């Protein structure tokens, strides 16, 4: 790709399942690798990905996820999510995909801005100290839209 009209990618991450978190991270990092600006707004369950105590314990969804090709009852058995998550993490490591904490560091070093959603932070009674130190700040959705106010900017909800 030589010249792209896409200048900035803004991601809204609303889920904490591993596959969604990685989708946002890989696309944000991929944008930077192409010289495109990138920012991530973590809202609702997406906030788990930037909570110090939770970010290394995210899971893949085994229930309500048809792509797992697993009967719902089976997916609900205790330990099944942990097992599926372990399998997926092993496959990701093979592809040299970093764990969540290291990925956040890479994103930060690559110049990706990381924002937490104010409403969701209030709703989950989170303190700033619960969130990663690399966070750029806590914003309202209005503030975040303000960051989209330029040519060649795309918003993506995950």
């Amino acid at each position: 790709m030589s010249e792209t009209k896409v200048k900035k990618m803004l991601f809204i991450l609303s889920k904490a399942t591993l596959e969604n978190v990685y989708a946002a991270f890989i696309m944000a990092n991929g944008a930077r690798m192409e010289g495109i600006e990138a920012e991530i707004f973590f809202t609702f369950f997406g906030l788990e990905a930037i909570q110090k105590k939770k970010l290394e314990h995210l899971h893949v969804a085994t229930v309500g996820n048809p792509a797992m090709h697993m009967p719902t009852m089976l997916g609900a058995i205790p330990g099944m999510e942990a097992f599926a998550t372990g399998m997926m993490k092993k496959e990701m490591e093979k592809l040299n995909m970093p764990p969540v904490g290291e990925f956040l560091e890479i994103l930060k070093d690559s110049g990706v801005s990381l924002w937490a959603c104010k409403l969701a932070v209030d709703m989950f009674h989170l303190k700033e100290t619960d969130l990663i130190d690399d966070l750029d700040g806590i914003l309202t959705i209005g503030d975040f839209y303000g960051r989209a106010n330029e040519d060649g900017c795309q918003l993506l909800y995950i």
Partner: protein
Amino acid sequence: MKKMLAEKPVDVNEEGYLLEFAQWDKEIADAIAVEEKIDLKDGHWKAIEWIQNEFKKDSPLSIRGIKNSGTLNIKEFYELFPGGPLKKASKIAGIPKPKSCI
């Protein structure tokens, strides 16, 4: 296709990446860097050397690899080659465009 770089004919693909690493030399690197609007300094050469060594070892390039390189950090790398560092650095280093998504 053939292209003249530093007054030498070299084989490049349609995006300007060298097809034969053996044709690469520092003058060619300088010529590609000028096209990419980069003025090569010590830091750039250090990065280029590291990338070429990885290429010779056949290990795929990634941003994570840069982080773990021990020679460079990601921030510096983005500052040295603004706007797509892995690709620009590979092009100047005379190696193929990296296929990595991470």
